[in-house]
């Protein structure tokens, strides 16, 4: 009886609990979908710059260097390739298959024109590192100040 009375005293408490549960649920969903965003075969990129160069890092675990194609057209960089480190066999039984393989392609616009002739690319620990020197006309010009 005492139990019933205490619930009657605060009829909205259950709604409040429910609301909190729903908030928590959305919080979890948001984290899974946004923060650990699934990119699949669309390599994630970091692009940074300094005065002379643009630097690009692309996550490409399990991809061999010979399976990567890079092209630069004016200020568009295209990273294409194929991840072929798949394991197959009739005798294999899979418990989890989260890693995606196959062809990928990504085009990204760079903020300035770069010089493709002196670009440098290397693949280390599953990350592709690109160093793209800015073309001369894209570099900032020093203006000498006369006294």
């Amino acid at each position, binding site marked *: 009886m005492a139990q019933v009375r205490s619930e009657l005293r605060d009829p909205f408490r259950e709604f409040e609990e429910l609301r909190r549960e729903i908030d928590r649920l959305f919080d979890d969903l948001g984290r899974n979908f946004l923060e650990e965003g699934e990119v699949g075969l669309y390599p994630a990129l970091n692009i*940074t710059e300094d005065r002379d160069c643009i630097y690009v890092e692309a996550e*490409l675990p399990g991809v061999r260097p010979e399976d990567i194609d890079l092209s630069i057209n004016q200020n568009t960089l295209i990273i294409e390739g194929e991840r072929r*480190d798949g394991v197959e066999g009739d005798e*294999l039984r899979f418990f989890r298959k989260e890693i995606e393989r196959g062809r990928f392609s990504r085009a990204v616009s*760079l903020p300035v024109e770069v010089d493709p002739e002196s670009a440098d690319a290397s*693949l280390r620990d*599953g990350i592709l590192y690109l160093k793209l020197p800015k073309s001369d006309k894209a570099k900032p010009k020093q203006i000498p100040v006369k006294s």
Partner: protein
Amino acid sequence: MKKVERYKRRAYYTTKPKVDIFEDDTSITILADLPGVKTEDLSVEVKDNILSIDGKVNRTDKKKSYILMEIDTERYGREFVLTPIVDQTGIEAELKNGVLRITLPKIKEATPHKIKVGG
């Protein structure tokens, strides 16, 4: 509230790597994508039947000015409970091209063996 905050912070710093797990007759294999992790920054250990992977990402671009940032993983971590059929003394791990391969051999009792039929 505090618990949620703490969880969020941990989730930010530690990313769960994507894995493939499969078995054949003699072993179980785990493949985990750990781009940017070097061998010396990776630990794979077994304790109380739990196999844990913990790898630090070597970020070289921290001080540069960013145009685009999609990769912000600082640490990869994931744990797996081992079943009794795994021979824990024979576990091997290899990191190559940002992919970790852990081979967990099965104990003899769990691997199929032919029984000769006498004629």
